[in-house]
């Protein structure tokens, strides 16, 4: 239920309308809006046409997971030999390959 405007309200509203009257520039607004529409959007970091933001985020997350898993797996391969030698030494197995970096004992007496 809304109350209709009485004559005093109408008179006051007319005064508000008169006080608010001012020149406006709709054509100017139109061209300013068009220029903002045409302003080039910010380029994507990796330009992939047709890639939605959600898909890009999911791809990035998958890439990070793969990189993390690889980060654990690859060092394991490269240190496997050293681990075996340390284990053999701990168990007293002596036929392991000599350590080329072990200090040599000078036994010639010369």
């Amino acid at each position, binding site marked *: 239920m809304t109350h209709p405007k009485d004559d005093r*309200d109408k008179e006051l509203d007319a005064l508000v309308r008169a006080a608010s009257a001012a020149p406006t520039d709709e054509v100017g607004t139109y061209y300013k809006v*068009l220029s*903002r529409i045409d302003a080039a959007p910010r380029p994507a970091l990796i330009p992939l046409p047709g890639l939605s933001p959600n898909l890009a985020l999911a791809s990035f997350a998958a890439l990070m997971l793969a990189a993390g898993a690889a980060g654990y797996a690859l060092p394991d391969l490269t240190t496997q030999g050293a681990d075996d030698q340390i284990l053999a030494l701990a168990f007293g197995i002596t036929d392991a390959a000599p350590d080329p970096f072990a200090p040599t004992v000078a036994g010639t007496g010369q």
Partner: protein
Amino acid sequence: MSAIARGDRRALGELIALHGRSLTLVATRFLGNPEDADEVMQDVFLRVWRHAQKYDPARARVKTWLYRITVNICIDRQRRTSLRRFIGLDDPPVEIADPQPGAADRLESRRELAHVRGAIADLPARQRMALLLSAVAELDTTEVAAAMAVSNGAVEQLLVRARRTLRKTIAESEEMPS
């Protein structure tokens, strides 16, 4: 609106021609600054251009939807402006004189309108917006309520208070010697 959603720039121009003036007058009088209102108008129609496909004719008329967007952007802008003034980055607005040259016999009328503008500017923001949507945009109570996202009853209250305060302020300014 469907033409705008399809990327029809001419349809956007027609929409601006149809509603731009009224929206601009409301934004100018709400913000008290034509430059701010100009930027608000650009934001409004840019948002319309980008989100035209979201417009649902079953929920609101185009005019009401446009005013809803305008109200939101005006309120955001006013908050930012108030903050900038509070921390001293912006100066308070200076009311620009009517650019149209008036005859001397219209001076009294212009002075009265200047008082009305001052009284509108002094109203609390929600009362000011409700009054402008009702008087300048000529929206009915239900449309004002939709544009401001409040109930019809709240709009009635805002309008009663705004008109009462405005009458009082105008009467006081008329009693003062000019």
